[in-house]
C-alpha cells in the first residue's frame, strides 16, 4: 500500500505476483467449475475481466461519494449492474457460451476477485490506476483459467477448444474434467505459480498488509499501530 507503483507495475502484478486465483486464492469456485473446457474458461475469464475493469472504474470514481458504512452494498449494486450488461450481451451474441456457463455467469456478482479488488484497491486509488489494476487482475484470472482448462480439457476429454487432439486409441482420463481432477490441477498450477513468483524474487502474496484488509476500519490492533503480519501472510 505504502510504496508507489507505476501503472505498468499495477498491471503486471495481477498476472503472476498477485494473480487473484493462483496467489491470492480468490474466486476458486468459478475457477474449478468453468475450467472443464477451454471455451467456457475463456468466456468466463473475459466476462469477469470486463466486469472487473468497469466496476473498478466506477467504484474508484465514486469512492468519495460512497459512505464508508454502506460501501459493500454500493459496490455490489455497481458490480451487479455490469454483470447484467455482460450477461445480456453474452446471451445476445454467444448464446452457446451462456448455456455452458449457466449459473456461473450471473454469479460473477459475488465473485470474490471483483469485490476484493473494489475493497482493496478501487475504493482507495485513482480511476486510471484502478482501471489498470482491474485489467491486470482480469488478465491474470483469464490466464489462470486458460492454463487450467488446457490441462483439464486435453487430459480429460482429449480435445482442445472442442477439437479432438488425441488419437482415438488413447482414451482420455475422464477424472480430469470431474471435480477431483479440477482440484488436482488447481493445486499443481498453484504450486507452479508460486515457484515462478519465488524465482522472480517475490515472497508470499499478501493483500498489501493490514491496511488493505477489509476489516481495517474496525480493527483494534491496526488502530493501536500493530500489524498482524503473520496472519495476513498465511491467508
Amino acid at each position, binding site marked *: 500500500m505504502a510504496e508507489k507503483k507505476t501503472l505498468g507495475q499495477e498491471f503486471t502484478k495481477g498476472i503472476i505476483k498477485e494473480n487473484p486465483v493462483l496467489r491470492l486464492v480468490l474466486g476458486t469456485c468459478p475457477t474449478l467449475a468453468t475450467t472443464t473446457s477451454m471455451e467456457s474458461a475463456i468466456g468466463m475469464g473475459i466476462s469477469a475481466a470486463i466486469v472487473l475493469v468497469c466496476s473498478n472504474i466506477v467504484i474508484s470514481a465514486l469512492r468519495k461519494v460512497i459512505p464508508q458504512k454502506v460501501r459493500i452494498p454500493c459496490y455490489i449494486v455497481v458490480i451487479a449492474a455490469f454483470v447484467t450488461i455482460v450477461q445480456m450481451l453474452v446471451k445476445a451474441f454467444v448464446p452457446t457460451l451462456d448455456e455452458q456457463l449457466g449459473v456461473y455467469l450471473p454469479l460473477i456478482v459475488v465473485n470474490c476477485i471483483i469485490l476484493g479488488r473494489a475493497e482493496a484497491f478501487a475504493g482507495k486509488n485513482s480511476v486510471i490506476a484502478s482501471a489498470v489494476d482491474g485489467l491486470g487482475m482480469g488478465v491474470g484470472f483469464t490466464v489462470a483459467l486458460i492454463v487450467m482448462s488446457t490441462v483439464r480439457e486435453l487430459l480429460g476429454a482429449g480435445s482442445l477448444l472442442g477439437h479432438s487432439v488425441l488419437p482415438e486409441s488413447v*482414451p*482420455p*482420463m*475422464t*477424472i*480430469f474434467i*470431474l471435480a*477431483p481432477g479440477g482440484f*488436482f490441477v488447481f493445486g499443481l498450477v498453484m504450486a507452479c505459480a508460486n515457484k515462478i513468483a519465488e524465482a522472480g524474487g517475490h515472497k508470499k502474496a499478501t493483500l498489501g498488509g493490514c491496511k488493505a484488509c477489509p476489516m481495517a476500519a474496525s480493527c483494534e490492533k491496526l488502530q493501536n499501530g500493530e500489524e498482524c503480519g503473520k496472519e495476513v501472510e498465511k491467508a
Partner: protein
Amino acid sequence: MSENTAEKKLLTVSASPHRRTQDTTRGIMLDVIIAMIPALVLSVVLFGFDSLKLVLVSVAFSVLFEWLCRKVMKRDNTIGDLSAIVTGILLAFNLPSTMPLYMVIIGDAVAIIVVKQFFGGIGQNFVNPALVGRIVLMMSFPTYTNNFAEPFAWKIDKIDAVSGATPLALFAGNYSHDAAVSVMNSSELPGLSQMFFGIRAGCLGETCAAALIVGALYLFIRKVISPTIPLCYIGTVAVIMLIRGGGSLSFTAYQVMAGGLLLGAIFMATDYTTSPMSFKGKVIYAVGCGIITSLIRIFGSLPEGVSFSIILMNILVPHIERLTHSRPFGAVKEKKEKKEKEATA
C-alpha cells in the same frame, strides 16, 4: 528406522520408552509381501501370465516413482523399506488382468507421487495410496477397469480374453428379496466352493478367498496386524447382508467373498498410517467401513464399494483418533480441560 543410528559407543540418556524391538518398517513390509504371495500365485493360475506381468510392471514403476520423487525432492531414499513394492502389488491386485499396462503406470504415478510423496512419503499419506490409484483409474477408464477376464480364459483363447461378469456385478441393482434369489439361482453365478477357491471373474488379488485368508492368518500370527479391523469390517458387512437377505446364509457368504471385501479388509483397511491406533478406534473405523460398503452395494449405482468406503473412513481417522485417544493413567477429565485452557491462554 532411526533405531539403527544408535550404534555409537556413547552412553545415551534418553526419554522412555527404553525397550527396543527388532521390528523395522522393512521387516513388516516384507511380511505383508509374503502374505500376498498365495493370492498372487492364484491370480497367475486363474488369469495367466497377464496378471504376473501386471504385478511386475506395477511394482517396478512404483519403486521407480518413489526413487525419482525422493531424488527430485532431495530427500533420503526410502525404496529400501519395501513400502513402494507393497503399494505396487496392492494396486495391481485391485485391477483386472485385462488392464492396459500404461494405465497401470498412471495408477502407480497417482499412488506414489500424488498420494504418498506429495504428502511427505511413508507414514504421512492421509489415505491409502493404492486405493486412490485404483479409484482414479476407475473414474478415468471405467470401460477398462470393468473388463474382467473369465477365469482360465487364457488357456482356451489367447487372442481375445472372454470377458465375464463379477458376482457383485450380477447382484448389482438386485438386492430386493426376489431379485437376489433369482440371481443366486442363475447359472452365471459361480458356486460357493468356486467362490472360496477364487474360480470367478474379478480383479487379480480379490478372487480367491482361501488365499487371502491364509495371508491374513500369517499376518495375525506374525502380529503384523491385529485381527480387530478385518473381523469387525467383514462382520459388519455380514450382519447387514444377513438382515438384508432375510437370514439367508448363502447370500451372506456370497456377499462376504465377492468383490474386494476380503482383500480390502485384510490388506488395505489395516494400513498403519491410515487406521486408528486404539482398540475402540479400530472398531469404530472398521464398522464404519462395513456400513459404507454395504450401503454402496445395496443402494449405490456401483456394484462394489470397498475402495470408496476405506478411503472415506481413512479421511475420518484423525477425528476417530481424537475421540478415542487413551487418557494418561490417573488423569481426570476436568483437569485435562483445564490444562488445555491454560495452554491456549
